[in-house]
């Protein structure tokens, strides 16, 4: 179906929203891609646009949101999808798991009914019985004990950790090629969190499902992501293989973010980033991080807000002109994948 290994590609995506205070730019010139079978994390402070990026991929943005640039899923532009095609895309190709499992399920419908409906929405040829069998199998697959009984349970009868597994199972019955997770473990306990992350990694490994995960939890990222896309103020600051980015960041924002996290030197003062990110209502000229960056120079004011490849570092890109200047011309804007 496509000539690239990329299952997802965002190319200069902008998302604007008219508000009483002016146009809010929720995403600004966002480009990144996700190869089939990868686990990619979107990281960044609250308000950096992680959820917006995921919602844009599923065409679930608020009505009135203006999207520019292109989003390709499996090589296909999703902008023109309408009606039945759009429903099929959302129920089959790409599925979303939200932070709050309680909101993802209907409180008055049994878990079995919701899983069966999800399966049949993805594959209308499936009989009721076949869908129920599939639902039971998937519950077992995500580690729910006694799935037969659980199918008859209602959401309030199960714990938060189990509920998040059920929500993941509800996405899986559609055998999607792309699983988008927005803070899938934030509402859960540390031990439950570890169990859910293990599950996601297993599904990725055993079923080949591509996972894109939005989170501000650096431990979650270090744990499971193959690649990391760091977002700041609706833009991409840098991207690359997780281990490399965390050990050797190539953008001052990434480095500040890593240093602000606790756990490095117990007992010492944390390194806060002074100031706060620009609001989506602000017009940004040059590098969006410049106002808070201790490495800012005059060239930063005219930096194009886009990532470029870093010479000699395959797979890594940065939007910091001081890092990339002299390594690649900003016009070389075709992604190498």
């Amino acid at each position, binding site marked *: 179906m496509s000539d690239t290994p990329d299952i997802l590609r965002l190319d200069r995506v902008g998302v604007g929203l008219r508000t009483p205070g002016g146009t809010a730019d929720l995403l600004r010139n966002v480009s990144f891609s996700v190869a089939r079978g990868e686990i990619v994390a979107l990281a960044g*402070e609250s308000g950096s646009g992680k959820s917006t990026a995921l919602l844009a991929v599923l065409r679930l943005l608020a009505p009135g949101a203006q999207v520019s640039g292109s989003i390709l899923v499996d090589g296909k532009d999703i902008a023109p999808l309408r009606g039945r095609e759009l429903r099929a895309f959302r129920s089959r190709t790409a599925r979303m798991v939200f932070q709050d499992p309680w909101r993802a399920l209907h409180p008055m419908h049994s878990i079995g009914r919701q899983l069966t409906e999800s399966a049949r929405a993805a594959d209308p040829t499936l009989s009721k019985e076949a869908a129920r069998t599939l639902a039971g199998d998937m519950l077992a697959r995500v580690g729910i004990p006694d799935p037969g009984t659980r199918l008859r349970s209602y959401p309030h009868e199960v714990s938060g950790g189990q509920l998040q597994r059920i929500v993941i199972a509800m996405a899986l019955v559609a055998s999607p090629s792309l699983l988008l997770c927005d803070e899938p473990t934030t509402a859960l306990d540390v031990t439950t969190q*570890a169990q859910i992350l293990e599950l996601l990694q297993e599904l990725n490994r055993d079923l080949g499902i591509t996972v894109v995960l939005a989170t501000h939890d650096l431990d979650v990222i270090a744990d499971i992501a193959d690649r990391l896309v760091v977002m700041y103020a609706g833009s991409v600051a840098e991207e690359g293989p997780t281990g490399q980015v965390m050990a050797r960041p190539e953008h001052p924002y990434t480095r*500040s973010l890593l240093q602000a996290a*606790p756990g490095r030197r117990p*007992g010492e*003062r944390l390194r806060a980033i002074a*100031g*706060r990110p620009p609001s989506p209502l602000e017009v940004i000229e040059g590098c969006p991080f410049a106002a808070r960056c*201790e490495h800012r120079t005059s060239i930063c004011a005219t930096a194009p807000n886009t990532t470029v490849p870093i010479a000699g570092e395959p797979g890594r890109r940065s939007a910091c002109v001081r890092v990339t200047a*002299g390594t690649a011309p900003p016009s070389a804007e075709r992604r190498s994948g």
Partner: protein
Amino acid sequence: MNPDRRTVSHDGPVLRASGLAKHFRMGGLGRSRKVLKAVDGVSLEIGRGETLGLVGESGSGKTTVGRTLIRLYPPTAGTVEFEGRDITRSSGARLRQDVRRRMSMVFQNPSTSLNPYMRLGEALTEPLVVHRIGDAAQRRSRVAEMLELVGLDTSMADRYPQELSGGQRQRIGIARALITDPSLIIADEPTASLDVSVQAQIVNLLGDLQKELGLAYLFITHDLALVRQISHRVAVMYLGRLMETAPADALFTEPLHPYSAVLASMHQDREHRIVPRGEIPSPMSPPSGCVFRTRCPIAREQCAEQVPQLREAAPGRSVACHFPGELKLDTAAASVRPEPAELTFTDVPPTTAPPRPVPAGSVPHTGEKE
């Protein structure tokens, strides 16, 4: 918050709780009424100027401990001593004078703990009015002093909560907790709704205030990296009971309780983690014997039969387990987060001066923009 290990004074704790319990009666009538033991037999001490971290799974009773200590809930059993006085049964004026003035609470969600129709100045004055402290002019200057102390512009007094960022609102929550000059602050997940960069500002602020004013904190959180960073000692709860209390470093490098080992192992690489099986049992029907036994990797018969009591295991350490220290961490892997490498720039040297770095030890002053 930087726990300066030297400034902790050891002459008499600011707070001491013994055998504290808080049970809630749940639905049903007569015999069918169930009891939920949210907190059951918790004993702990907090020294002057000390930070005691309180960790544990969701529903383990952390918030209930905090609310019972400050007497928002009357305890079902046990005693609480605060600044040398027994406050277990204090009420009315005594409660206000002995407890609420000198012990305050910072809540998890700064958005819902502030009245949206009240200007911040009024919200800050309220505790002074309740405690009949000062006259109008003194109250105004105290409010200004507090705003200054938490690094906010005094003009903030005229604003409404909605006009502030999450981090600024949390600073207001802290100013409000500080205004009556307490010796102990119970901070219940004070940074849970904030991201790391704002969290770092708040945590540093709490640390500075501790040094300046000799405050003690009970710091309740889910975040293990954070609790290790800021606490002198840590108490670990599970299903309403205390599993272990230990100096922060010791807890994370040599945990004695299997549940502490589970938590400490979460800091390590995946292969070295101890992920407990199953899920936390219902607090309405906790397991017999040790409450952790249904998920404990080393549980055996004795664990189902006898409740392990919290016992001193070493000076300053207590643990409630029949086999303390048996489940060990893979210490080779016990790690703290590595420092990210310096950036290398490929462009010409700086042509304009970078912004001035905030001098170490000072409270960053954030007025209009944070």
